[in-house]
């Protein structure tokens, strides 16, 4: 049993936190306000090796463990949850290739991401299918040596800049999850129509759009793991990506917490700093406990993954608990700031808007609870 980070991990965190503080935090508000992708910052993060943490060394990656990638994600989300979404969305899209791709597919699709900064988009959600992912309607039909894709995808992160789309569709909707197929589509393939940028509450700098696929034709060799094998890939992807999203919640929560602690020591009411009032102390104590518990859940979910053990239940624990905690912590940080916290002049207002999304994407907090309950009852 060891709760400590390794010397390597401490150095990784050091760099990621330095980057978050020096490069992301000073620009977070500006990019939130103008709602545009901070491409220069993202590219700089890539140059330092902070992007695409899931790519194995054989294909040019840095060979990070799952825990390493959690540490990086937490640190980057500390800097800005929105920018981190743009970074994390790459991993989310590349993970299905790491998990379900053949050696040839990995060389073809992953290695270019290690040679220059490229952007990937994960396309699962549809206008009418979010939580009910197995009910997606986008079709992937075999046609000779190709597959043909038709359908609409919604809330696609990085869509406007994507060099690569990793899309889930169905070969036969009546088969539900048994008909799901995962396919890689390169930018410029005829028939891809990227919609207008969504005007969101938070994560405003991350580029979110609808994408329509009209008779998009790609060679069959772009299908990951074979026809109708997509669901298994999707589930394994979630085992890795959910703790990652949870770790971004920990980063956002830690940032809100640090701001709140600092402010509570400076703000004087009734002739004493408000940190001396129990009402504030109780909030701060609750925040600290939730952050620590969230982080431990994330690290355990990642540790199980690194050790080849089933982690679906822990992944959902971490995702639901960290996301709900982050929302509560960000809300309480605004509460501690009082009226100032509600103003865009202070940083906690943005964190509160950003926090909400973590409860929604990558499986809502409610879906996580369904997963957890299903795991419990299926084994009792």
């Amino acid at each position, binding site marked *: 049993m060891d709760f400590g980070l390794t010397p*390597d991990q401490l*150095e*990784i965190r050091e*760099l990621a936190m*330095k*980057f978050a503080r020096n490069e992301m935090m000073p620009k977070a508000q500006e990019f939130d306000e103008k709602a545009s992708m901070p491409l220069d910052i993202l590219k700089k993060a890539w*140059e*330092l*090796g*902070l992007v695409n943490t899931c790519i194995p060394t054989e294909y040019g990656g*840095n060979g990070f463990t799952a825990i390493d990638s959690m540490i990086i994600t937490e640190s980057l989300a500390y800097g800005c949850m929105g920018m981190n979404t743009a970074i994390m969305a790459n991993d989310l899209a590349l993970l299905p290739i790491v998990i379900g791709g053949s050696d040839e597919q990995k060389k073809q699709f992953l290695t270019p991401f290690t040679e220059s900064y490229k952007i990937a988009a994960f396309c699962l959600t549809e206008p009418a299918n979010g939580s009910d992912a197995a009910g997606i309607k986008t079709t992937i039909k075999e046609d000779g040596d190709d597959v043909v894709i038709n359908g609409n995808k919604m809330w696609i992160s990085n869509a406007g800049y994507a060099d690569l789309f990793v899309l889930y569709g169905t070969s036969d909707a009546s088969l539900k999850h048994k008909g799901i197929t995962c396919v890689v589509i390169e930018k410029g393939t005829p028939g891809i129509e990227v919609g207008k940028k969504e005007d969101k509450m938070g994560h405003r700098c991350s580029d979110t759009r609808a994408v329509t696929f009209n008779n998009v034709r790609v060679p069959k060799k772009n299908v990951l793991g074979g026809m109708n094998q997509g669901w298994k890939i999707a589930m394994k992807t979630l085992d890795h990506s959910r703790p990652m999203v949870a770790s971004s919640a920990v980063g956002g929560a830690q940032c809100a917490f640090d701001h709140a602690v600092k402010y509570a020591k400076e703000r004087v009411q009734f002739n004493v700093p408000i940190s001396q009032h129990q009402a504030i102390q109780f909030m701060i104590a609750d925040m600290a406990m939730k952050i620590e518990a969230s982080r431990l859940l994330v690290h355990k979910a990642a540790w199980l993954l690194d050790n080849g053990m089933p982690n679906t239940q822990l992944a959902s624990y971490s995702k639901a608990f960290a996301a709900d905690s982050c929302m509560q912590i960000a809300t309480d940080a605004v509460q501690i700031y009082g009226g100032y916290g509600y103003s865009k002049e202070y940083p906690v207002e943005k964190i509160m808007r950003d926090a909400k999304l973590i409860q929604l994407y990558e499986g809502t907090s409610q879906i996580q609870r369904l997963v957890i309950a299903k795991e419990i009852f299926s084994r009792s």
Partner: protein
Amino acid sequence: MNIFVCVKQVPDTETKIVPTGDGTFIETASIKWIMNPYCEFAVEQALLVQAANAGSTVTVVRVGSSKDTEALRTAMAMGADDAFLVEAGDNLDSYMIAKALKGAIEKSGKTPDLILTGKQAIDDDCLQVPQILATMLNLPSVSVVVGYEGSATDITVKREVEGGALEVYGVKLPALIACNKGINTPRYASLPGIMKAKKKPLTTLALADVGVSDADKRVKYSGFTLPPEKPAGKKFDATDAAKMGAVVKEVVGLLRTEAKVL
């Protein structure tokens, strides 16, 4: 070129400093150490000079505790080739540090063409080691340098002086150059760089190996205390128009006699 960089490890700027019980130093056990920011400029400058002069090597040298080798690891992760650590306490005086650095440079077996340092360390702010070291090595030195250009033999450096004016020096190498903020923008140590740094040679030496002993001590630290807390400000009530004149007079008087700013 044989380029040497002397780096110091200092407490993170956010560290809460606590003197030891006997007041002879500060508590170091819980300090988070970072590379002195001025030394980062020196490392970056060394790497820039190396890039401009093919076949050059960058060697980093540090004197201090071996518990945490943050500064040397960071320098190698940024791109330096090898490192020498002279193991010692964190409370040596400037003369001992300079002598140990000189000894380590000599132990490396390479004759320096250029030595780069920070202009000062942000912890004790002594501003002495670069000059003492240059004197010991009989090298010319320029400090507070904000501009550097030139070849492997002749360089032109700009030095910041009072009032923001610049002095320009032409210097023949070998020389020691102490860097100030503005000379460059230090690069980050990338993650692949961090991984590579682990395989780079780090030689550890004892003070005795570099010919330094207690007899070299010039300064004895005896009293570390925190600065006195800032006293609360004074408030003057000048809302009553009739008394305004008197209040202004009192404030001016106090600014003169107490605050001594007039």
